[in-house]
């Protein structure tokens, strides 16, 4: 039964290669997008960290994005 499922009446190579290709490409795109996002989050949080205490306070108060990224980065480290 499993061999029937894999061979798909002789079309297995075509069907499995199509599905594998699709999900492999999707996985790579997901991995790369996530990696870029994490890289930007890290760089952004580091840049906030490097600001003076007063500047940091202003940035974190003014920008929801900055405070979100900064707090989540600090949670991960």
């Amino acid at each position, binding site marked *: 039964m499993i061999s029937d*499922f894999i061979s798909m009446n002789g079309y297995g190579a*075509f069907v499995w290669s199509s*599905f594998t290709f699709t999900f492999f490409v999707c996985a790579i*795109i997901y991995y790369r997008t996530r990696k870029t*996002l994490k890289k*930007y989050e890290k760089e*952004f949080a580091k840049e906030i960290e490097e*600001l003076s205490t007063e500047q940091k306070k202003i940035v974190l108060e003014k920008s929801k*994005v900055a405070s979100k990224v900064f707090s989540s980065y600090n949670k991960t480290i």
Partner: protein
Amino acid sequence: MLNFFNNSNIFIWIEKLINFINSIFFVLLLAALSFALIFSPPDYLQGDSVRIMYVHVPAAWIGLASFTCIALLSILNFIFKIKNFVLITKSIAPIGLTFTCIAIVTGSIWGQPTWGTFWAWDARITSMVILALFYLMIIVSHKLISEEVKANKISSIIAAVGLINIPIIKYSVEWWSTLHQPASIKITGTSTIHSSMLMPLLLMFLVLIVYSALIFLMKYKTEIIRIKKKNLKRYD
């Protein structure tokens, strides 16, 4: 109302949506794969090779829909100068290119058992290759042109010109004699596909749309951070 659409609020919503999609995605994927590979019947003519349709057709739909979206938003941005539209088009383009390439490759694999060849320069395939080239031009224009306003203008022009290709792809099977069959699924009118195949097809489409939304949200989030990062330099 306009305040709701500022980047800070959008950013918070994006985080919530990403978490939601992550929580449902694998259940949806498992269900779609089960229907596509196990529960759906083989075609009376094509046999089990018809299962390739479950990745090929949704990928082509997403490729076409993404470009239409990019082109319309680019035109609207040209008229109304809405900055968020640029971010959206920039984030959608790589998704569209990915799915257009998936549609071309899986179509080519499907072609071998169905038509006896991996490749034929028929109208539908050629116009899909042209669509992929338009996507590439949009992405490359953003990568190569450092001046943002100029890059946006050029990519908008490319998108607007490329919009002409969308009806060509859609109606290529009717206008020219091609290897592709006419559309089996019609929004207006009766579809000729059986419900036992339509259901897995729509389920797989849902999975790939949810996946596209996830990638789009992550890319959009990256763009917002990139802008905020640039703005942070004002404090130095």
